[in-house]
């Protein structure tokens, strides 16, 4: 069960053109900056992987992380709830120029669709967005006197996740509000790739405290002292 990968480049080496990539994080908290940048560097070197569909709550900030992917021209489509970040220049430019597609999903629906993808639930009903533009074209149904919208599961080929601790079997913990979408994305992707601040021996994480069990994790690469997107932006790093 060799889930530990030696370096970032190897961890993202086989991500193909045109695949869907879930990326953990809400704003800067939980953004796997080093994994993303390894992917951007690979694209700069080889022209691949391009034409990606990226699933994240936001659509990049400043010129790092997902914004760097967008600036590099790797991203064909964003699936997100809130593409207006504090500095959404990269996405906004391309979107208004018609060079990137957007699927806008309410945040709770986005979370539940990803969980459904991981849990084998192809569709579910939610009150969210009933009667709004975002429900147009979707089946609706009445349950117990109230109207609901049918939403479909969301899966991805790859998930890129930032964890705090990881063991060799892939069990993960997260740091504070950096948890957000990551445990769900780990469930919903065919291949889940994790950067962990520290890799520990199996048993070092109390079985009661595991947040993502190893069954959902395929690859772990250790990235000590990872960069934090929001902190980088505030330092003026671009």
């Amino acid at each position, binding site marked *: 069960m060799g889930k530990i990968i030696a370096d970032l480049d190897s961890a993202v080496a086989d991500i193909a053109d045109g695949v869907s990539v879930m990326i953990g994080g*809400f*704003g*800067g*908290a*939980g953004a796997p900056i080093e994994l993303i940048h390894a992917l951007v560097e690979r694209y700069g070197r080889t022209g691949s992987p391009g034409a990606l569909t990226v699933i994240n709550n936001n659509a990049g900030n400043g010129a790092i992380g997902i914004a760097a992917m967008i600036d590099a021209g790797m991203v064909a489509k964003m699936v997100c*709830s*809130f*593409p*207006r*970040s*504090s500095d*959404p220049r990269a*996405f*906004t430019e391309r*979107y*208004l120029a018609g060079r990137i597609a*957007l699927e*806008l*999903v*309410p*945040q*709770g*629906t*986005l*979370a*539940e669709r*990803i*969980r459904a993808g991981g849990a084998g639930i192809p569709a579910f009903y*939610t*009150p*969210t*967005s*009933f*009667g*709004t*533009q*975002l429900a147009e074209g979707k089946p609706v149904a009445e349950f117990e006197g109230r109207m609901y919208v049918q939403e479909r599961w969301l899966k991805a080929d790859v998930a890129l996740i930032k964890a705090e601790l990881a063991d060799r079997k892939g069990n993960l913990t*997260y*740091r*504070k*509000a*950096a*948890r*957000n*979408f*990551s*445990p*769900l994305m780990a469930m919903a992707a065919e291949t889940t790739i994790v950067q962990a601040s520290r890799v520990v021996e199996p048993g070092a994480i109390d079985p009661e405290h595991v*947040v993502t069990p190893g069954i959902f994790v395929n690859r772990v690469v250790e990235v000590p002292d990872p960069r*934090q*997107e*929001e*902190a980088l932006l*505030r330092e003026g790093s671009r």
Partner: protein
Amino acid sequence: MSTKLTNAQIAWRAAQDLPDGAYVNLGIGFPEMIAKFKPEGREVVYHTENGILDFGEAPPAGEEDWDLINAGKKAVTLNPGAAFFHHADSFAMVRGGHLDVAVLGAYEVAENGDLANWSTGPGSVPAVGGAMDLVHGARQVWVVTDHVTRKGEPKLLKHCSLPLTGVGCVTTVYTSLAVIDIVERRFVLREKLPGMSFEELQFLTGAELIAGGVADLIVPEI
């Protein structure tokens, strides 16, 4: 007393209605201000969509931990008894009816409780965040807003003209001029500024106001 309340005064007024022991989600921006005015001795637990229950005030400048933020991406702190959880659990709290109150801003509110607050129409980048979930989850959905637009047009209307956030979801509107409950698809005036006549307020409101026992809307200078 000025002719209309400041945002801080609107926030203060809304804060007076927070029930003791309530679980509350304050929307990004203006609604966040409500936490500052929570009455002494009342215990309120704040929820943020990105996975924290019972967060506290902002840390001092320079002591921010950017993994400890709220939905507005502002740094926060934790109260004793806080908890972290993932996004699906967080919106289970929202959608499952576990929040007592959600407070949002508004572009428009209709008398039947429809809310428009996420899109001003084509031409910009649309963004919805958690608003559509919050309006259909919390037991009470409050709106804090100016009573009229910058151009002086009513924001409280017979029907919303902008894209909807939710249908029939708003329960109370705290405006710069009044406190208005939505009861059986009508605007029921609960409080208005003492210096203003009912007719003046009706003139600035785009749908009929129902006057029950109207009290004076009195807030401190802030």
